[in-house]
């Protein structure tokens, strides 16, 4: 292919042959492109391995590089808190609504945080409409575990009157575009939306025993920790790539998601797990910086 190209380039010097020659170059490149596309479709794993050997990926990223992350906070006016996160093409929007509810009988001084991840046919051809499929349920459980384990909000803060009234935060995470790494995007969207939530002040009127809501006096939630998720895909038992796209997730032999709380981790060397930890620490710093910038730039309501 290179030889034909050189030959035609030599002929290009003659103007009359220019048009003719450029036609041939065009078909050469076209054949080359078609071959590439066919190879990618027929042998995706081999195609990927060729890139991984050079320590890069088809979309041009390094193995440890995240896609461009964008976050937009407070875009949904009807929700009490909202955030939209884009990780490359993966788009997740989180909307939080606060409602009243009775606290659980075994924990009368606690409120509820109810997450729900919705993967609809809109985001990917893999999902069908109807009851939530396995991936959506697993993602919802994952987010519930993150909220529970990281103690992002103390449920006691959501209690208004012990045993009688508490806040219930319904967190709906809707995926608009699924291009891999849903869990990282959801965790980030949830965190940003929770930081955006403003709850009105509620007092219980002693005479009527009814709750009185003061919409003019709103306060932000007390967010204790900042859990940030970093996902990895494992290839051929050795190679670890960060932030896999949907294609990479499909081809990978395994996945790993690390949820990092505050800056943690000592400087140990060795195990692959340790490399993941350090990458997760760096990611945590990047995400925190981005979120602080966004929240600072928001105009106060």
């Amino acid at each position, binding site marked *: 292919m290179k030889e034909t190209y050189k030959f035609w380039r030599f002929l290009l010097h003659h103007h009359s042959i220019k048009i003719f020659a450029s036609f041939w170059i065009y078909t050469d490149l076209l054949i080359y492109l078609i071959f590439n596309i066919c190879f990618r479709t027929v042998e995706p794993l081999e195609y990927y391995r060729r890139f991984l050997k050079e320590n890069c990926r088809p979309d041009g990223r390094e193995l440890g590089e995240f896609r461009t992350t964008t976050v937009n906070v407070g875009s949904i006016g009807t929700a009490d808190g909202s955030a939209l996160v884009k990780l490359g093409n993966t788009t997740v929007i989180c909307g939080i609504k606060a409602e009243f509810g009775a606290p659980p009988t075994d924990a009368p001084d606690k409120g509820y945080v109810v997450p729900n991840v919705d993967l609809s046919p809109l985001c990917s051809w893999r999902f069908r409409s109807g009851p939530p499929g*396995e991936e959506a*349920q*697993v993602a919802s*459980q994952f987010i519930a575990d993150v909220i529970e384990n990281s103690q992002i909000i103390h449920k006691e803060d959501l209690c208004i009157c012990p045993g009688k009234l508490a806040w219930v935060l319904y967190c709906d995470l809707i995926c608009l575009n699924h291009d891999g790494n849903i869990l990282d995007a959801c965790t980030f969207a949830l965190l940003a939306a929770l930081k955006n939530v403003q709850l009105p002040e509620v007092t219980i009127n002693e005479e009527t025993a009814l709750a009185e809501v003061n919409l003019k006096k709103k306060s932000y939630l007390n967010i204790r920790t900042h859990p940030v998720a970093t996902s990895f895909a494992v290839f051929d038992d050795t190679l670890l790539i960060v932030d896999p796209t949907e294609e990479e997730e499909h081809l990978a032999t*395994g996945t790993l998601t690390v949820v990092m709380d505050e800056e*943690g*981790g000592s400087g140990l060397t060795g195990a692959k*797990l340790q490399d993941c930890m350090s990458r997760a620490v760096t990611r945590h710093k990047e995400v925190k910086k981005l979120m602080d910038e966004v929240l600072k730039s928001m105009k106060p309501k």
Partner: protein
Amino acid sequence: MEGAMQTESKIRAESGTESGPRGPGCSLRHFACEQNLLSRPDGSASFLQAGRRYLHFGDTSVLAGVYGPAEVKVSKEIFNKATLEVILRPKIGLPGVAEKSRERLIRNTCEAVVLGALHPRTSITVVLQVVSDAGSLLACCLNAACMALVDAGVPMRALFCGVTCALDSDGTLMLDPTAKQEKEARAVLTFALDSVERKLLTSTTKGLYSDAELQQCLAAAQAASQHVFRFYRESLQRRYSKS
């Protein structure tokens, strides 16, 4: 030819206390495993992690059944390997979202080990029923699934086992915690390890811990898995030597 083979084993990693519950330290509970107890599934096993000796109180017990390689629905078939499916039924109530999450974990572990390429366009279904839960449930499920897959004769690259670790508020490590210990622990980590090189197949954790603690728990789990694999070997030897 094949009746139910029951193997009991008393496994202790370190010398703990003789009577009553084990003391804090690296010791696993007593296990028992029974294979081929159900006639309809291709393979079945019951794995028990005992609470009190001679009294079945405070046991974690899981019953597993394996069907496969069998017919698969065209929508679910994979052209070059077997489709693995795991169904986990809780002891009480209908299966919910937490069960789905555990099913996915167990399925991913099995997929890493089962040689699906030998049976393309078929399905291998693992059904797990929780009989009693007294802590370390996921590890017990993994052990039961492995024993059932062996009983069914599904080709596997290695055996796998589950080990649970709990971290106390003052950093003490407890292997194979009971339900009470899990509740009071700061973090509970479950690992699935393979038998060939003790490599980590699956890890799922709950709670807060540092990465030094994670490495420590992983090392302890790898040491404890040796005992589980020895138990597997002994129980299978005993079963096949009789018939």
